């Protein structure tokens, strides 16, 4: 019995490759050249072309925040971005954010406070928390809840996530 694993690219009905473009963008500080359709979602390009699976698809409609990335320093939902609109931008995914001990205060606080259970929302939560703490280094609990309200979590009920972000703020986020 032989098994075939298809791992690259979203399914295409038509010939596909002919309408692909070469798109250059910076991902996690590396300049990358991807071959993709203009309307391929940034989420799919990041996960499938670039193999960065830390960014998740939870809803595909910009509601749950698990696909969050930073685009030129701004928090966005990558499921809503055609990759052509990311051309020439600087994208940071959770892998890039967590590299070299960055956000270790957030990571350690999440571990200490129980901010992650199944982990699906966690990359998005860390990105949203990082984005918030950059703007508000000492947020109130209410500001944290507002800042993270675009990230849905089913496991934790948010309490320990909010505690983790408060704790990270107290310890000081490494940037």
């Amino acid at each position, binding site marked *: 019995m032989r098994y075939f694993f298809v791992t690259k690219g979203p399914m295409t009905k038509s010939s596909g490759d002919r309408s692909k473009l070469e798109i250059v963008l910076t991902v996690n500080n590396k300049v990358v050249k991807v071959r993709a359709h203009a309307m391929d979602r940034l989420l799919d390009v990041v996960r499938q072309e670039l193999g960065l699976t830390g960014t998740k698809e*939870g*809803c595909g*409609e910009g*509601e*749950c925040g698990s696909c969050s990335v930073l685009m030129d320093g701004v928090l966005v939902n990558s499921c809503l971005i055609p990759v052509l609109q990311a051309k020439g931008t600087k994208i940071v995914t959770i892998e890039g954010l967590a590299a070299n001990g960055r956000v270790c205060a957030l990571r350690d606080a999440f571990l*200490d*406070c*129980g901010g992650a*259970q199944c982990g699906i929302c966690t990359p998005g939560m860390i990105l949203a928390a990082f984005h918030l703490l950059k703007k508000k280094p000492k947020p109130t*609990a209410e500001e*944290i*809840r*507002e800042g*993270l*309200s*675009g*990230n*849905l*979590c*089913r*496991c*934790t*009920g*948010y*309490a*320990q*996530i*909010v505690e983790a972000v408060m704790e990270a703020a107290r310890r000081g986020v490494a940037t």
Partner: protein
Amino acid sequence: MTTYGVSVDDFVALQEVGKVLHPVLAKGQIVGGIAQAIGFALYEKVLWENGRMLNGQMTNYIMPTSADLPSIRVYFEEMGNVHGAFGAKGIGELPIDGPAPAIINAVGDALGVSFDAIPLLPEDIFDALEKHAGTACATSSSRRGQ
């Protein structure tokens, strides 16, 4: 009474779990289950049409966001259990059972109207109050809603 909406401002859970093996994880399980139950009680209506779910997307199936939930306070009692490791009991399923009845009873207590179905949406509260027009709104309570 402006919107007939209910929000949970504070929630206290006391759970007897035999033995707490890992306090952070145990608390996480309880809070998570309570959050799901608050959704169960006040937000998560499933709409059906001809056997199909109408609102099966995250946009229209309403689960609570971080802005909707309070800080949930969890306390444990440990009375042991001869069957469990170090006296622990399983807790994963437990926390979702109690909160919805507690919330519905609280709303009923506040309004003087009895409710027996979940989720209890603002529209349901509005309809019930219309039926009991005049008498229900006289009850005042700090947990009345907004």
